[in-house]
């Protein structure tokens, strides 16, 4: 890459609109190479999706793109124009928690918390697709969500608490 190509001029040219959590969000003056994660965090004020690896390995940036769980660090933001993007910020209204979020709090599944938004997005996705998922299915579903603090034990406990609560609510 020559230095000419990396001037500010070549970077501030893109304009597009993202649909994030049901709202149209215009993006202006963006560099075409920016990831969806970067644009969410740095341009749209949605830092809930995390940047633990930006290599598609850790799951901390997980979002739903047209209903499919993706690592937003590996999606070009401009490619997401025209798609429905759902982030952790869209899961629950201000001041409220989803049942999965509540269970993470109550069961002690949160330590440093850096992996937690991505993990919660992934667990909601699993339970939406497979309401009957068991612990092994959970382990497989979140095996792409690295956590360095908890050893996952309280995460499993939170999952079981959600399952029990949903079973109770449906009877």
């Amino acid at each position, binding site marked *: *890459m020559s*230095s000419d190509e*990396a*001037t*500010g001029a070549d*970077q501030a040219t893109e304009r597009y609109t993202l649909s994030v959590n049901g709202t149209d969000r215009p993006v202006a003056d963006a*560099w075409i*190479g*920016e990831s969806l994660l*970067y644009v969410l*965090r*740095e341009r749209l*004020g949605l*830092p*809930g*999706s*995390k*940047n*633990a*690896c*930006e*290599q598609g*390995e*850790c799951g*901390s940036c997980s979002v739903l793109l047209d209903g499919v769980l993706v690592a937003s660090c590996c999606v070009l933001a401009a490619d997401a124009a025209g798609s429905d993007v759902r982030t*952790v*910020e869209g*899961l*629950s209204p201000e001041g409220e928690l989803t049942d*999965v*979020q509540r269970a*993470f*709090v109550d069961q*002690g599944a*949160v*330590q*440093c*918390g*850096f*992996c*937690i*938004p991505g993990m*919660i997005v992934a667990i909601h996705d699993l339970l939406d697709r497979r309401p009957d998922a068991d612990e*092994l299915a959970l*382990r*497989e579903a*979140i*095996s*792409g*969500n*690295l*956590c*360095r*603090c*908890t*050893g*996952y*034990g*309280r995460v*499993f406990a939170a999952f079981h608490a959600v399952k029990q609560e949903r079973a109770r609510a449906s009877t």
Partner: protein
Amino acid sequence: MPAPSMPSTFTRKRRAPGLGESVLRPDAPAKTKGQFAFSSDLWMEGMLWGATLRSPHPSARIRSLDPAPALAIGGVHAVITNDDLWGSRTYGLEHHDQPVFADQVVRYHGEPVAAVAADHPEIARRAAAAIAVDYEVLDPLVDSEAAITAPPIHPDGNLFRHLKIRFGDPGARGEVVVEGDYEVGMQDQAFLGPESGLAVPSEDGGVELYVATQWLHVDRDQIAACLNLPREKVRLTLAGTGGAFGGREDLSMQIHACLLALVTRRPVKMVYSREESFFGHVHRHPARLWYRHHATRDGRLVSVESRMVFDGGAYASSSTAVISNACAFAPGPYFVPNAKVDGYAVRTNNPPCGAMRGFGAVQTSFAAEAQMDKLAAALGMDPVELRLANALKQHDQLITGQVIIGTAPVAECITACRDLPLPEPLAADAPALSLPGGAGLTALAGDVRRGVGFAVGFKNLGFSEGFDDYSTARVRLELGPADEPLATVHLATAEVGQGFVTVAMQIARAELGVREVVVQAADTQVGSAGSTSASRQTMMSGGAIQMACSAVREVLLERAALDLHLAPADMVLEEGELVTRDGGASVSLADALRAGPIEATREFHHAPTEPLDENGQGNAHWSLAFAAHRAVVDVDPELGLVKVVQVATAQDIGKALNPLAVTGQIEGGIAQGIGLAVMEEIVLDQGKVRNPSFTDYLLPTALDMPPVVQTWIEQPERGAPYGAKGVGEPPTVSSTGAVVAAIRQATGLPLRRVPVRPDDIALTP
């Protein structure tokens, strides 16, 4: 699941609310919603992005360095190198031997050479890459053993420390002797929140830094020296910290971001990528250890001899303290009347190593526990019985000559761990995901062999060897907006995920009988809290809060006594009321606070310790914590694949102040121990890091992590606030050894090195 007993000492009314209960984290709801501000989430109008240029060579001379190509790029505001520094050019935790930017030479792969500030992170990265550096590549010194006598690669020499321990009769011989060589690979802390922060120039010519770190004050002192600013002009505030595990005890982007902010007069944000993070912090020391154990025929330890070399990499960091722990705890938690230990921490052109959870005790525990199994085999004894027969206890001497005055329930840990339930045998129809190899569908249930292994470990809590270890707390009690008593707790203690904020609230509530407690952001506007390391903050900062609350309470009692024309000694604080001892009269906290807020600042210092003498003897440690681990593994010997099936543990914790938090610390610590046992290693090739990514540096996932069965030994530690011991590190000290012992039992292989890789199992003849 633990069955914590409720500590009886907390049933007194004054301490009734909170302590000993699983109070939930105050920051957890925001963390689940993505609303908790981590250091990488910071944003400020007009901020620039910083990037670092790092050496691609482990050893080289810099012939020339030209920043012009970077400065020519539009959007670049500054390039800064060693030539531009105006303050101290070096820094370090204990020894200031590490250059802020490479000064004529580079000594490790990834050493910072320059930093850039630009409008956009991509411009900053490209500009850093555009800086023209002409290197004369040199042969790196990468062999830690050779480093002891090799020509120095730094003006301060290659030997950080040679520690000698001579205890009893170092030449004592036993009837049964076993000997072995062991090796531990380089582990990474791999905290998920990358190194990051925001530096903001202030109007007085100083700088404000919002950063994820473990020890704000020591960061500040190093930064101030390199900026040539008085300490009071360098103000640090802890930003949301995504884990640490020792890896944030040394500086990473702090000085660079502050320099760029001062040069550009703009806020500067720096966020490391995962790749840069692998180069941006110290790692766990790789170690080579030789051991010879002597015992009587009936299984009493007679002597332990050891020689160990720890590779500290290019700069000192905390190597001298790491080797001290490694030597002092070399035999493991057993009484041994004679010992001869030589430990070396050396400088090489490998990446710098320093603090990581377990801090020196991990490496020796792995080797010493392998030796105990070898000794048991030579004696024809059960390995657990051998450990029980030699278990350290209170009033025994360590090999440093120190008599243990604190609690030392080693035998209790061993028996409690041994008696925990074992998992079910592997079912013939077990799902493939639960077999070795997991999702790869590689192992067949019929080929799998099960093994069980045991290991016991210990380490010191708090800082040792004469360091004046303390923490400072400021507690303010006043009437809040709703006329409710409100306590504000202010410390510089780094909450890195461990749960200190919860314990701080619990202590303040318990001591002051108030419901509303605010834990203020940690910053350098209050005295030092020491580091969030050495399992020390619940004890040290917890102790400081207890003392400050106590001082506030004294004023409350004086005010109430004055109101009632009594002496303060006639009054007590119970359930938020100041009552006479006979219960006849009372003053509410709110009434006592109408005369104005009460504030107190106190320091908690732990009992003094001593340096070690020329024979490695001295009362160097304050408090010790112990744990036993039992691991069960399934192994496919042909493919060399391991599945850890269960880890059971009994841990000496003094008293649980928050049982849920203790549970999580133990599970998380064991996960890191399993990682070192079977997967985690920074792979080096002639000093070059080969796997700086989560693609190639493997961490335990939800599929790798087995159930943890835990129980606690609760014997209150005298001199420690509420009798609690730190709980963070013991889970990591001996869980590695237990897993490897289990693999040895399943395979019959000696397995002298961690991590154990598939080829160590499948390709060993």
